[in-house]
């Protein structure tokens, strides 16, 4: 591989200047959200839902990365697992707290809640008892409970291993991951159906859960790349990171760029080609006015641009190239969510005027989550210090007598010929 080396002597990143950014975001975002709540509660509810689904994408994406790390028995992703565990744990209490406005404003968001005479609406009547007030809140609570249980269980076992180094912790995390992936798939699908697809309860698509999942993980990978980069440059993870973490995260981003496009194209194309009115109305609405341009932004910005930008191997390791792409994933995911959420309220076109409220709600949530994340991150070791696969992640041959030759380390040209003998036992 002809990748240019990252100069390891780059000056350490000093983040102290940025310390107040989360507070600033919370302050400005809080004020903006409050203003929005007063002037237009309906718009506030929609903007808040958008911000909430955006943050949920990140939290669920991080949970997914932790789960697949264990399912694949991966080695390379050990150093990035700890902060993913922290992000996943933001689900409680923070995401639950952010759900409160949605729970309160639900009738403004979900038109089916206003329908008194269910018998006249067969599409709604069919959804009994899921689409009732009780069903809505109960299933929402169930989803949060499952996510909290999973995120907490995985992080607790991981932190316990920091202390004991016991293999049992690894086994316990694997058990959580095994059952977790099934629960994760079903709860995430249910939540997205209830909170996003339910905004147009007449519409249905079996792909929808996968669709939200694909976009979420894509955006999460962009964020994970950025966090990993920052933690390398400010020295926190510099000792354990290797070039291949960046390469693999970049490759996964590329894979999910394609996966998202595949999923969205399939959903659109099958509906377009079959041309059944019960389904096409959802996309017809999204081709009205400026929504059509948002659709184009998604096709070109969510797929073609990152696809071409991530094609080359060496560029996946080039920070100045990757940083804008990672930030771009946020923008595209925002448009994607807006494309799903806003047309019910603004059928004529993208609500350019209300962008400030979307951003205010998002800033408030992200500011709070960042502070909570940083506090958690500071409280514990920055990476799983006694994970049995840590040496693989560092690109070293396991310091034990039996030679390993698994599918663990590929970038052998970066390996030291053998471990330094100093301190060898």
């Amino acid at each position, binding site marked *: 591989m*002809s990748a240019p080396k990252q100069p390891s002597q780059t000056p350490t990143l000093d983040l102290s200047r940025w310390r107040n950014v989360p507070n600033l975001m919370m302050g400005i975002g809080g004020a903006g959200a409050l203003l929005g709540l007063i002037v237009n509660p309906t718009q506030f509810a929609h903007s808040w839902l958008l911000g909430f689904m955006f943050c949920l994408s990140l939290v669920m994406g991080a949970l997914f990365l932790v789960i697949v790390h264990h399912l694949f028995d991966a080695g390379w992703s050990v150093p990035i697992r700890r902060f993913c565990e922290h992000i996943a744990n933001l689900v409680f209490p923070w995401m639950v707290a952010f759900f409160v406005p949605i729970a309160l404003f639900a009738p403004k968001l979900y038109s089916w809640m206003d329908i008194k005479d269910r018998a006249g609406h067969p599409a709604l009547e069919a959804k009994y008892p899921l689409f009732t007030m009780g069903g809505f809140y109960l299933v929402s609570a169930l989803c949060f409970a499952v996510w909290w249980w999973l995120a907490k269980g995985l992080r607790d076992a991981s932190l316990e291993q920091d202390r004991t180094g016991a293999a049992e912790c690894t086994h316990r995390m694997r058990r959580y991951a095994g059952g977790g992936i099934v629960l994760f798939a079903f709860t995430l699908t249910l939540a997205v159906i209830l909170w996003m697809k339910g905004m147009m309860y007449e519409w249905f698509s079996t792909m929808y859960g996968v669709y939200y999942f694909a976009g979420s993980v894509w955006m999460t990978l962009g964020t994970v790349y950025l966090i990993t980069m920052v933690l390398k440059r400010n020295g926190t993870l510099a000792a354990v990171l290797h070039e291949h973490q960046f390469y693999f995260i970049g490759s996964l981003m590329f894979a999910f760029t394609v996966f998202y496009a595949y999923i969205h*194209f399939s959903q*659109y*194309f099958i509906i*377009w*080609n079959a*041309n059944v009115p019960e389904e096409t109305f959802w996309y017809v609405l999204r081709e009205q006015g400026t929504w059509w341009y948002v659709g184009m932004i998604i096709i070109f910005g969510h797929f073609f641009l990152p696809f071409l930008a991530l094609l080359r191997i060496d560029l996946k390791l080039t920070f100045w190239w990757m940083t804008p792409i990672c930030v771009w994933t946020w923008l595209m995911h925002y448009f994607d969510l807006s494309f799903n959420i806003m047309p019910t309220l603004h059928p004529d076109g993208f609500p350019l005027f209300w962008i400030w409220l979307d951003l205010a709600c998002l800033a408030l949530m992200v500011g709070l989550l960042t502070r909570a994340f940083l506090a958690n991150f500071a409280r514990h070791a920055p990476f799983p210090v006694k994970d049995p696969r840590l040496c693989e992640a560092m690109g070293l041959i396991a310091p034990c007598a039996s030679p390993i030759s698994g599918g663990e380390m*590929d970038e*052998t*040209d970066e390996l030291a*010929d053998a471990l330094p003998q100093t301190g060898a036992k």
Partner: protein
Amino acid sequence: MSETATPYGLIAEFATPADAMHAAEKVRDQGFKRWDVYSPYPVHGMDKAMGLKNSKVGWFTFCGGVTGYTLGMVMIWWMNAHDYAIPVGGKPMFSPFSAFPPSYELTILLGAFGALFGMLIVNRLPRLHHPLLKHARFKLASHDRFFIVIECADPSYRGDETRALLESAGGHNIELVEE
């Protein structure tokens, strides 16, 4: 073997990939151009040890893929919307959506041809004869041994000096292979 056998190159044998790699680094540093390392499998890191640049095969694939996609789209537009328009199911005569699946397959087909034939073209294969194939021990290059061959045609080639270089790099059974 003909009467007027001209020398092809100097061959040296190595037992482990590490030996071959260290030797390759030495040969590279001497500025040789027409030489190669022969191994039963691709040795990771050997490209760097030999000072090779990134392979050019990607361009063949890229050109094949672009040709395939364009060909597919133009073909479908020309056949179904231009030359003999067939109205079916109220669908547009040409739509990038329904033309996408076949064009996509053609992209991959021609891209794959580009990859395989590009590799063969860049490697100057197929080749039915090679001086090394006559060398008795060279058969082990596909078994478990590693060889370095420096061609006599290399401008830096200096008979005994080159032999000494290969010896000092740890090569065994150093011999001159004839054309």
